[in-house]
């Protein structure tokens, strides 16, 4: 086999020869899935015109509605043990990720590291991660409302008026505080976040979340400066975690439990024990 696989008895992730996620086996199913990092170039507008503003702190507004891939091949290292199996992926010099599955956890963890976003080409960039499955979601997906109930979203649609979208990407982005999900009759895919992010489903079966952005123009909504964080030198590096839960559509209890455990993890306190042996400590 040319595939790399990691997992536990309930969940298996397979990676192709280019290092990308390609298949998930969970809940008795083997389904196609992919995950990659992409970026949008921020729009540069004329801020004196209300409908032609730059992408900035207040608004997400990609230039020309195009998305760009960051890598066609990923460097990978695989570590397998009896507690966790993980794949270390390097997409380019400023994007890397660890994908891991713990022995008895029902989810896969994607720990991403993005930055400093290069701006040598004088283009602002907004980085997203996209999970693409074969789930027939028919344009419907769900985002949470401050970690409480899930709200149904439909691509290119608003419930109370006839919508004509001029910006197909930004117009379909919604706030995600802790969870974004989609499903059909046979499978459900949910992604839990560790922080508030923007997210969408721009095609059936696909979920994407924005993880980091660096922009060179103010959007003229009030902040008065571009979102270009250079105080620490080259720009900020961000690191965070996503949890992927895949299974039958009825598996929502696992999502709620995982949500609690990941958003309210145990507090850790460290104490030097140089003055105590293990028996004295006990």
């Amino acid at each position, binding site marked *: 086999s040319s595939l790399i696989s990691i997992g536990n008895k309930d969940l298996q992730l397979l990676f192709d020869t280019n290092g990308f996620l390609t298949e998930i086996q969970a809940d008795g199913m083997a389904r196609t899935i992919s995950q990659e990092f992409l970026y949008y170039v921020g729009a540069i507008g004329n801020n004196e015109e209300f409908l032609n503003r730059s992408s900035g702190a207040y608004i997400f507004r990609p230039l020309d509605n195009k998305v760009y891939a960051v890598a066609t091949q990923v460097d990978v290292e695989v570590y397998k*043990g009896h507690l966790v199996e993980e794949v270390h992926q390097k997409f380019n010099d400023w994007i890397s990720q*660890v994908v891991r599955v713990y022995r008895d956890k029902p989810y896969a963890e994607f720990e991403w590291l993005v930055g400093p976003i290069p701006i040598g080409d004088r283009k602002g960039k907004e980085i997203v991660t996209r999970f693409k499955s074969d789930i027939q979601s028919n344009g419907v997906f769900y985002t949470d409302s401050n970690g409480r109930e899930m709200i149904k979203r439909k691509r290119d649609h608003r419930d109370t008026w006839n919508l004509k979208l001029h910006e197909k990407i930004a117009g379909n982005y919604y706030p995600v505080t802790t969870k974004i999900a989609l499903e059909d009759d046979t499978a459900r895919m949910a992604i839990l976040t560790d922080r508030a992010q923007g997210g969408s489903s721009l095609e059936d079966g696909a979920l994407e979340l924005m993880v980091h952005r660096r922009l060179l123009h103010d959007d003229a909504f009030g902040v008065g*400066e571009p979102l270009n964080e250079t105080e620490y030198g080259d720009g900020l590096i961000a690191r965070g975690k996503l949890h992927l839960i895949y299974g039958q559509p009825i598996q929502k209890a696992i999502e709620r439990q995982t949500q609690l455990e990941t958003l309210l993890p145990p507090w850790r306190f460290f104490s030097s024990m140089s003055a105590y042996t293990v028996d004295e400590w006990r």
Partner: protein
Amino acid sequence: EPHLTFMRETMGIMQHHDAVTGTEKQKVALDYAKRMSVAFRACGTNTRSVLNQLSTNEGAQPGRRRRSAYPFEFKSCSLLNISSCSVSESNEPFAITLYNPLAHPANEYVRVPVLGYNYVVTDYNGAELNTQVVPVPAGVSKIKHRASVAKYELIFLASDLPPVGYKTFYVQKSDTDRGHMNPSSAPRKT
């Protein structure tokens, strides 16, 4: 009380719509980060005091003289997300205490930045736990301002953490070579 009040006031400031959405000016973002850092550090004194009262070693060892009013540090490592912690990166044995804020028991895979791969983790019963070691990802170890010498992450399962309660684990370097724990990546398949 002043420590808690500083945290309360900071959390109040963090409810401002610019703080919630990230539309504050950069200088203000830096001030927010500074206030949060000071608030966490101040409240660290409170958690240290409380945990030392709860975990006093008097009684467990009658006649033993306490070394100080607060013998254990109970330090927070706010850079654990980039695998950096001064206590666990020293060569000394250390204890890690996990406080579970949930109202039900929790199982947590703990990841601790360490220097090598020969470690023993012991629970309060004296039982040795299963551990695993993986390298700190290359992307993390190359972060320019990361002041850490940790090359590995030690992983163990802290099971059955009591609801709104805590458990402590003792971590020490092993005298014997536990070479089987040396993490090595699987060969790249082509």
